[in-house]
């Protein structure tokens, strides 16, 4: 038996591909597997080619493979595009009502007819494939029924009938009972949903966003649970309004986050600088996609690191966090709110399409111990000064209406009272105050896991990676016996921790989804060198085989 399984399901946009992928993931979840789903779709509503690759393994994974064991095709295009992926002994199942040039050895099922005969909606063809897969893979019918009942809200009996017909059409090919694994049965959930849940766990009061792929999943998720968590979710006229509105929320004492991608973040730059100067706590999710400009909206990239690190005029403290997996997405989203409010700074959560829209098995037990970082609040003594300047630069917060406190936020250089100044000494003092906060932030970060190490910690060759590339890098690093060093906090850069993680390393290879090696450039300014770069900038994430091949080339 194989120790892991990959299933590709493909069709047109509107065929329910993502949903089919999630059902397949939940089936294997019931069998004790760890899941990862990669979703590939073009920027259109109907037509085109969508596919999902669901990978199930007995160990923790965070990447997909090129090769698949099951190819489930709703149309000819899926067959034509993905036949190269078939592993030895792979099973191909397709809709014979659609596929006119079937591959040898595949199993055709008249899915359109199944759906019509069962009285199910046309989209239920995907359920026919799932039924067939369950037969071919030996997944018990009870498990299929249990998962479908949970996942499909409407026409469930008709859908179950389609699944039964699919299963009956393939039963004879079944290769016995599917192997069980012992990975804990975890929620299978997208990075965007985990970012939303992490923010909620951190005490989020409001979320403000303008739709932009691949960040919109957070907006949709939070709008959906706004009632349960009693939070305010607002979709304003543009991203400029988004960040300014969020700063209004924060001024009034509400923990607020915003979300966007590169183009929307361009519009937020003036708001970033305002948050820096006026000391407004704010969490800004930037989920990267392939650019420049409109670029490739539904595909991935890690090309905005220097942009988010320097966005906004002037010099002000900020924190940039690039979570690399499901647990980090949750943990750091919650922690980001605490840090934003303690230090009264903008915090960027830097994701990308891969982390945001892929689905992962999320083990909350690996994301525990979220630090309780509380804001510094005014004690009500004496005259309130919004920008009072204690030694650590952190001014106590008060929120209107508060009798006796006049709270004056200001985008101009200002006095402790919040009144504008152009005095040389006062300007300098104001800037020093901002820098003091940054020093304190750096001290606080020292107690958090800002740099992670995977693979063989004794290896003298290290893969360097950040963000979503951690999943594929740690898996390949492990397999090749290499050390993998992944900074999670990228600004202020945890140089001390990074140096410790690289102790004994003689050679470094930076793995990045961009064309210039942005992490490599960043670490150079701290005196570290990336000896080799493995870069990918075709909008697609690294696969396990793809990175393995590139690493072997570089290592040779």
């Amino acid at each position, binding site marked *: 038996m194989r120790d892991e399984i990959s299933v590709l399901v493909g069709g047109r946009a509107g065929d329910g591909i993502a949903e089919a992928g999630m059902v397949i993931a939940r089936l294997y979840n019931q069998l004790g597997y760890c899941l990862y789903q990669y979703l590939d779709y073009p920027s259109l509503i109907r037509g085109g080619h969508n596919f999902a690759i669901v990978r199930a393994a007995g160990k923790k994974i965070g990447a997909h493979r090129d090769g698949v064991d099951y190819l489930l095709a709703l149309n000819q295009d899926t067959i034509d595009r993905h036949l190269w992926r078939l592993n030895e002994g792979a099973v191909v199942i397709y809709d014979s009502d659609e596929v006119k040039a079937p591959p040898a050895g595949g199993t055709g099922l008249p899915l359109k007819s199944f759906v019509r005969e069962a009285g199910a909606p046309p989209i239920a063809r995907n359920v026919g494939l799932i039924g067939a897969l369950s037969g071919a893979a030996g997944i018990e019918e009870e498990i299929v029924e249990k998962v479908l009942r949970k996942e499909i809200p409407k026409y469930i009996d008709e859908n179950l009938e389609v699944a039964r017909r699919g299963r009956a059409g393939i039963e004879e090919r079944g290769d016995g009972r599917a192997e069980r694994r012992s990975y804990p*049965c975890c929620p299978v959930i997208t990075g965007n949903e985990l970012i939303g849940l992490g923010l909620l*766990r951190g005490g989020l009061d409001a979320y403000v966003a303008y739709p932009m792929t691949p960040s919109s999943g957070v907006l949709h998720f939070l709008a959906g649970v706004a009632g349960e968590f009693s939070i305010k979710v607002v979709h304003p006229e543009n991203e400029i309004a988004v960040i*300014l509105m969020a700063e209004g929320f924060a001024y009034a004492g509400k923990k607020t986050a915003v979300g966007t991608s590169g183009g929307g973040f361009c519009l937020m730059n003036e708001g970033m600088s305002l948050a820096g100067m006026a000391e407004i706590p704010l969490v800004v999710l930037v989920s990267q996609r392939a650019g420049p400009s409109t670029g490739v909206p539904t595909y991935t990239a890690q090309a905005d690191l220097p942009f988010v690190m320097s966005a906004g005029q002037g010099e002000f403290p900020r924190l940039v966090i690039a979570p690399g997996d499901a647990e980090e997405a949750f943990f750091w989203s919650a922690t980001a709110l605490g840090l934003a409010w303690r230090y009264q700074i903008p915090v960027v959560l830097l994701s990308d399409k891969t982390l945001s829209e892929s689905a992962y098995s999320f083990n909350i037990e690996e994301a525990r111990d979220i630090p309780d970082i509380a804001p510094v609040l005014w004690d009500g003594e004496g005259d309130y000064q919004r920008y009072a300047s204690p030694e650590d630069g952190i001014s106590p917060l008060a929120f209107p209406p508060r009798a006796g406190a006049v709270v*004056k936020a200001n985008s101009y250089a200002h006095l402790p009272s919040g009144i504008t100044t152009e005095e040389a000494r006062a300007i300098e003092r104001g800037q020093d105050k901002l820098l003091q906060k940054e020093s304190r932030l750096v001290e606080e970060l020292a107690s958090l896991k800002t740099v992670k190490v995977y693979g063989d910690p004794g290896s003298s060759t290290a893969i360097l990676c950040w963000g979503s590339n951690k999943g594929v890098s740690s898996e390949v690093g492990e397999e090749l016996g290499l050390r993998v060093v992944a900074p999670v906090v990228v600004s202020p850069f945890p140089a001390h921790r990074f140096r410790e993680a690289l102790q004994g390393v003689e050679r470094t290879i930076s793995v990045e989804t961009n064309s210039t090696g942005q992490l490599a450039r960043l670490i150079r300014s701290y005196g570290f060198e990336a000896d080799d770069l493995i870069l990918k900038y075709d909008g697609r994430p690294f696969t396990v085989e793809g990175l393995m091949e590139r690493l072997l080339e570089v290592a040779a």
Partner: protein
Amino acid sequence: MKPQDLGTTAQNTWCPGCGNFAILNAIKPVLAELDGAGIVPIENVVVVTGIGCHGKIADYLHLNSFYAIHGRAIPVATGIKLANPDLNVICFVGDGDAYAEGLDHLIFAAKRNVEITTIVHDNRVYGLTTGQYTPTSPSGFSGRSTPGGLEVSPINPLELIFASGGTFIARGYSNRIDLLKETMREAILHRGFAFVDVLQVCATFFNMYDLYNRRTYALEEHDPEDPVLAQERMREWDYNSEGPIPLGVFHRRAAPTFADNFEDKNSKIPDLEGEVRRVLKGYI
């Protein structure tokens, strides 16, 4: 509380003869009176400004304030109001600020009927950047960026706000301070988006005192609840011709406000971890 209690120690740097003084001197007694009468407690007032000569009012008022950035007072004010509907949020904005840089926000505030007051210091010129045309400058305006004279006509902001769904639309003039106070008071108490375009004279770059003194008149026997009459009166002067310039409240109507949609979303969940775990069960 006396109006003078609302002043600060900041040195006033507006030019002599600037119409901004009238707005500052009008808002102080209005807010002092509303506080004294127990209608709007002074600590519930939040002033939000953009950037321009008008914005300095944030420094001159001993009130909660958010001195924001150019064109962006309105989204900040919207966030504050949604965060805490008990606050009384007043935006002081400029004409370049609200009608050019931040026009999108102004239209959306009117469309949403968010309960904030917007007072536009409309001097029809950029003052702080020393004399360029704004969206309400008359055609032919000879500014530093249009030395040959402005080729295009101004917008009529009152009509714009009306078309956007505004529920309180008024005009004031910095040289008619009693009427201005009355209008501001009404605007602050309006339940919804209250918009006041104040003809405020820039004595240095566009001195219109003579023309405004001759042409302005207070609306009387006008029914602001009648939208047809309101539009007629708004069109009486197009910010370009030499027609009569009505002052006062043109239009007023009752409508649900934006914050009503969020009223029930304000409670703290006691067990966030438990609630998160409950949601996660749906993903198994």
